[in-house]
């Protein structure tokens, strides 16, 4: 990754919108300035709603190194062969052209909360009145014995979007007949609780079609996992005998890997594998730590507006935040972003601020037309974002309902990506 150049995006109207970005502002500036770091589910939504709803009254800058955001959501469906990689890519042109957001393609490398400035890798400095961080996750070094980021090509995590996802699918396609796919599942908390298990389903779907004698071996440090009953039912129905999950009680947490030898050792037993998907323990994206708003691995926030516990002018959204009961998901990040945008706009202009309401639903695909979902609503209490009510698909549902659930997930994908980027 090149870190030394600053890019502006787009042509025409998009370029015109970005050109009025003031890099460094003197005191006594006119419009209130919001800088958003990270153009993913949380950041793109927050920037879009702030710019759209304030109709030019707030100056919004979005800092994001990638020109194309590849969603992690639906990346398992790409692995399963249900989506193309292009279906997952989204660009920032409309955010600049339609809403006048200053989209800066660069990395934020430091935050000075006293001076209220953000430094970019390209050397520029952005001043802010309010700063919103939605940098997603980074991995905890050393959490899986034998694995480090340097080994991510031999043993991909595929837990950030784009090239890692493509790599894993290519490796699965290249597996020898009757080979072994291994996964090291992550400890809590991590992004997308059903994600690893939807991935296992999608890998099984691919292997069943092209390599039916292949096996899937999973080492899981947790005693139980999201939608477990639904996944286990689905695996028994569709992929009987293919998947072996070694849970906490059988030493699934006692794992090491050797990326050079392509082996995995679970509770003392070594196995040679053909593909090894290592999903390490997670923490808030590094910039949150550099901004000094984390406590341990995550950034504690106030539920009413997602402001950090340590600085009322700095907000953290999505996976990086420690907010209470919501799972780390794209849906949650999008939901939190709207509450935050409403509060930030209210603080900077005198627009009305409405009470915080949050919700989440996570759909997973088990096999063709076999979709399941889990969801809940949440409210802000003094202490945290607290769950109000929830539901989950049941085992034994009809094929029609499962198909409708899958089609609904496609509707959700179209909806949330439009809500972020269009």
């Amino acid at each position, binding site marked *: 990754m090149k870190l030394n150049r600053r890019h502006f995006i787009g042509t025409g109207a998009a370029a015109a919108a970005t050109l009025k970005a003031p890099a460094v502002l003197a005191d006594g500036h006119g419009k209130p300035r919001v800088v958003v770091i990270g153009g993913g589910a949380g950041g793109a939504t927050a920037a879009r*709603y702030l710019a759209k*709803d304030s109709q030019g009254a707030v100056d919004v800058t979005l800092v994001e190194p990638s020109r194309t955001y590849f969603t992690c959501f639906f990346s398992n469906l790409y692995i399963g062969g249900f989506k193309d990689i292009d279906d997952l890519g989204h660009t920032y042109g409309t955010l600049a052209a339609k809403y006048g957001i200053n989209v800066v393609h660069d990395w934020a490398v430091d935050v000075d909360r006293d001076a209220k400035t953000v430094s970019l890798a390209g050397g520029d400095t952005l001043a802010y009145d309010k700063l919103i961080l939605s940098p997603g996750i980074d991995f905890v070094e050393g959490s899986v014995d034998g694995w480090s980021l340097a080994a991510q090509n031999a043993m991909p995590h595929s837990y950030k979007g784009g090239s890692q996802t493509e790599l894993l699918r290519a490796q699965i396609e290249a597996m020898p007949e009757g080979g072994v796919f291994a996964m090291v599942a992550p400890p809590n908390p991590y992004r997308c609780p059903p994600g690893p298990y939807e991935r296992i389903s999608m890998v099984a779907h691919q292997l069943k079609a092209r390599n039916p004698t292949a096996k899937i071996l999973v080492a899981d440090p947790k005693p139980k996992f999201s939608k477990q009953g639904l996944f286990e039912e689905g695996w028994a129905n569709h992929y009987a005998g293919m998947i072996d999950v070694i849970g906490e009680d059988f030493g699934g947490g006692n794992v090491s890997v050797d990326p050079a030898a392509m082996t995995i050792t679970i509770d003392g037993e070594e196995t040679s594998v053909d593909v090894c998907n290592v999903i390490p323990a997670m923490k808030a994206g590094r910039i949150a730590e550099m901004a000094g708003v984390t406590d341990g691995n995550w950034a504690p926030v106030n539920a009413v507006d997602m402001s950090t516990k340590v600085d009322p002018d700095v907000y953290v959204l999505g996976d990086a935040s420690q907010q209470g009961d919501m799972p780390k998901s794209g*849906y949650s990040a*999008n*939901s939190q972003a*709207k509450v935050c945008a*409403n509060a930030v706009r209210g603080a900077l202009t005198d627009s*009305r601020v*409405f009470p915080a*309401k949050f*919700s989440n*639903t996570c759909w997973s695909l088990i096999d063709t037309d076999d979709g399941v*979902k889990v*969801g*809940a*609503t949440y*409210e802000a209490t003094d202490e945290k974002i607290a769950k*109000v*009510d*929830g*539901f989950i698909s049941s085992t034994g549902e009809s094929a029609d309902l499962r198909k409708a659930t899958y*089609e*609904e*997930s*496609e*509707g*959700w994908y*179209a*909806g*949330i990506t*439009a*809500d972020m980027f269009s």
Partner: protein
Amino acid sequence: MKRWRLAAAVVAALHVGAASAETQLLGDPEIGEQLYIKCKSCHQVGAGAKDGIGPHLNGIFGRRAAAHEGFFYSKSMARAGADGLVWTAETLDAYLENPRALVSKTRMSFRGLKDPAERANIMAYLRAFSDNPADLPEAEPTARGTDHDLDPAILAIQGDPAYGEYLSSECLTCHQRDGSAEGIPSITRWPEEDFVIAMHAYKNKLRPHPVMQMMAGRLNNEEIAALAAYFKTLE
């Protein structure tokens, strides 16, 4: 059935002049009336029919797409009309088979009817309402709007559209603003009353969908009214 085909042929010869193509595509209007249950919660038809979630369908045959005055069509439908799409037995057949294949971002949240015979029957039923405006038959669907027992006081609440706009952001994670309906129905531009009735039906668990029961369940009467007021005006 035979009788109808003959009548349709005469009608078509008189009005459209494309008798053979049309008669082949029309089925049994009585079966069509039963099947029309799938359509009638959004489309009224018959004497006194009014626009609802979708436009009324009197006079649909021979009309240009998106040409009915007073109904706010999706951009996609308006474009199709401007490009010359006219509703005939052939074009309606294609639209009913797969609405989004013909008009990609239509707000019509309908998966389509795979069975050609079912489409033919529905079209035969609709055909009767496209003939002479003076003697349009009465049809049951015009009675809708009263088939709920929601307190009139709840229906009378004036929603606050500004609050509705904020609350709507939660809906828009799944339901697209422009009303495109891919696996998740459009809620854009619904008449307020239909919106309020539907949301209370979810809240009271009369409608089955678990996500919607949960979402509606924690909205109070004013909040539902606010959402209805906002979505009604969405461009």
